[in-house]
């Protein structure tokens, strides 16, 4: 049982990471980050079955942080969109030397 859960978590995490690396759309990248977080959540819940309740408590923390992050992240994306009329991260590169 634990093996399947870990494999599921790993697949979800790799999909998320891959998405962050290859996609250019900020919204999609944001969703992929959510996917990575939830992949970790799956692993936490699975391990809590073996090691106690601590894992599940951490999941709540992760969900809370993810919610806050979603609020801030979406706000940033909206403000960028208002400015550039685009959410393609390839076109935002002003923060450099």
């Amino acid at each position, binding site marked *: 049982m634990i093996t399947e859960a870990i494999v599921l978590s790993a697949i979800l995490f790799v999909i998320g*990471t891959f998405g*962050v*690396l290859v996609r*250019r759309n900020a919204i999609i*990248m944001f969703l992929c980050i959510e996917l990575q977080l939830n992949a970790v959540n799956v692993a936490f819940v699975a391990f809590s079955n073996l090691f106690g309740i601590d894992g599940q408590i951490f999941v709540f923390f992760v969900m809370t942080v993810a919610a806050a992050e979603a609020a801030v992240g979406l706000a940033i994306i909206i403000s960028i969109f208002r400015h550039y009329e685009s959410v393609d*991260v*390839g076109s*935002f*590169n*002003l*923060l*450099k*030397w």
Partner: protein
Amino acid sequence: MTLALRPSLVAALAALALPASVAAQGGAPAGESGGAFTPFLPGMIVLLPLLGFLANGALALAHGKKSADAVRAGGELDLGERAQRPLTHTLPSLIGPGVLGLAFLITLVNFSRALGASLEEPVVVHYWTWMATGTFTVDAALQLDQLSLLMMMIVTGVGFLIHVFSVGYMRDDAGYPRYFAYLNLFVFFMLVLVMGASYALMFVGWEGVGLCSYLLIGFWFGDKEKSDAGKKAFIVNRIGDFGFLVAMFLLYATFGTLDFVPIFADAQLTTSLVYGGGLVTAITLFFFLGAAGKSAQIPLYVWLPDAMAGPTPVSALIHAATMVTAGVYLVARSSVLFALSPVGSATVAGVGVLTALFAATIALQQYDIKKVLAYSTVSQLGYMFVGVGVGAYAAGVFHLMTHAFFKALLFLGSGAVIHSMHHAYHHTHKHDDPQDMRNMGGLRAHMPITWITMWIGTLAIAGIWPLAGFFSKDEIIWQVAAFGGAVNAPYPLLYTLFWMTALAAAMLTAFYMTRMMVMTFHGSNRTGAEEAKHLHEAPAVMWVPLAVLAVLSVFGGWINVPEALRTSFLGLGGALPMSEWLHHWLEPVTAGAHEVQLEHLGEVAHAAPVGGGEVAWAAISFLAAAAVVAAAFKVVGAQKTVPAHDAPAPTGFANVLYNKYYVDELYNWIVVQPIVRASQFCWRVIDATIIDGTVNAVGWVSKGVGWGVSMFQTGNVSTYAFVLTLGVLVILGVSVF
């Protein structure tokens, strides 16, 4: 701050007034002349000039900014009428000479007590322990013996007269309170120098007088030339101070102490030192290097003529009467050490006689009245060193004393002349040199008192009987001959040469001094018709010190008439109650040296190398000096002197003398330029290129690396995410495998 300071100040004052212990070293046997000597407030003698310095210094600070601005602007400060002058310019007239007068009175009490008491061993007055490290301790202690008492009399007595003269001479100067502050500080350090009971304390005074000399030479610091002269004096003296320091280190390594009493007692027993040994020779030669710096002997004399840039009373006090004689005092004080080293003593005498001749020849062709006197001082200091170099310590100190009288008189007289000339030029706004003798002439009619007193000084220095210089200089010249003829004299021929050179230099002295007097006071006036109306005699505050010094220059020599001359015509036909008084008075100080000399060299001769006794040679040298004075009077009087700006440049050997044998140029070429070039090498190559280059290179490399690395910051979020992932994978890979 002030409250915290006050108790310690009071304690210090109390400590000075009440000595911790007064110790006559060793058991002083009660002599036939009276009881033991009790010092009278010796600390106050030192303290009074210091208090004067503090008071005058405070006044100078209160007036500091205005005065400094006025000096920098090179002009004079309008001080207003005498009655309305601020306190800062009236109080120093009382404080400055006042503290010196009091110190002189206290010294006088001590001196008269010493006259009536037996003072076989020096009295050392301890105040507190200045420093104590391990086995080495230096006490703040004053030594009172015949030599230091005599020096104290000269310093405070002549110093007082010069302070009084300064009141007149410096009255209109913007830096009046500052002047007296420095002058009082100088006297304080000079007294520490002569009264200190150890070489360490003597060195404190030695450095202190050097500092004051620097401050006073550069007193008018607005003039670059004058401030440069101050620096030159200070730097040249540092070379001598190095010698003094090394000698002190050697003494400490040998004796483990720097106090006079134990060192001289030990040295005389020759437990630590060997007669004629390398160590004592090294010590004496290093001490003489110090003495040559302070007392302006070859090769370190070059600073003294330049030191004439200072106010003239300063030249009289520091650069003629007191500070420059410190080297002679040092040798006389260390007489036992010098007696133990025939090489050291011969060097002292040789350098002295060479300097006496060398400086006298330069003085022949100088036109600046103060330069003549400066070279004359260098020359006379040479005589003093000859005296102490041939074991005639009393004769050297005797000449020191008489020289203090007549040279202070001559300098103050020249000050009165310059004062008058300056005023005359000031009235007509003429910008000629008020110190150039070619611009003077005929001043006798305008300033008779100065004229007479300066003639007395001139005749005294020229060695005319019966003035002071005759007895003191003649005694030295005679002692050279006598020493060379001693039973076991180390280099008899050399001393014969010294003797003849000293005689020749004495003739030159008579010539250049007469030349100076004739050019200044006789003949027709060359100041200018309009200017001559404003020439005036010095005020009483200036001529009274001149008169006092003139009296001393006449009678000062009578305290040490040689025994051989006593009953003859030259010794005033036996009219004097005593002969060689000073010699006997100084005997407790010089006895150790004389014993060493008698033991190793035997009795000195009683005839000159070419025959003739003391009386004969005294008569010959007097007659020769008188003849030279008369001849110079005629020769120089007959010369047609023209004012400085019309005068042709001197030619031939006269030009070499006028340019002082080009010694300054030679030093510039041998010493100064290499140092300048080496400094420039250190600055331009080592500092600016190597050190700054390294520091800058570090900066440039960091900047370049930073610029290169900043290329990684693309601003592209995807790149960052990729690198981040890669990094995580690498870390994971490293930690797993």
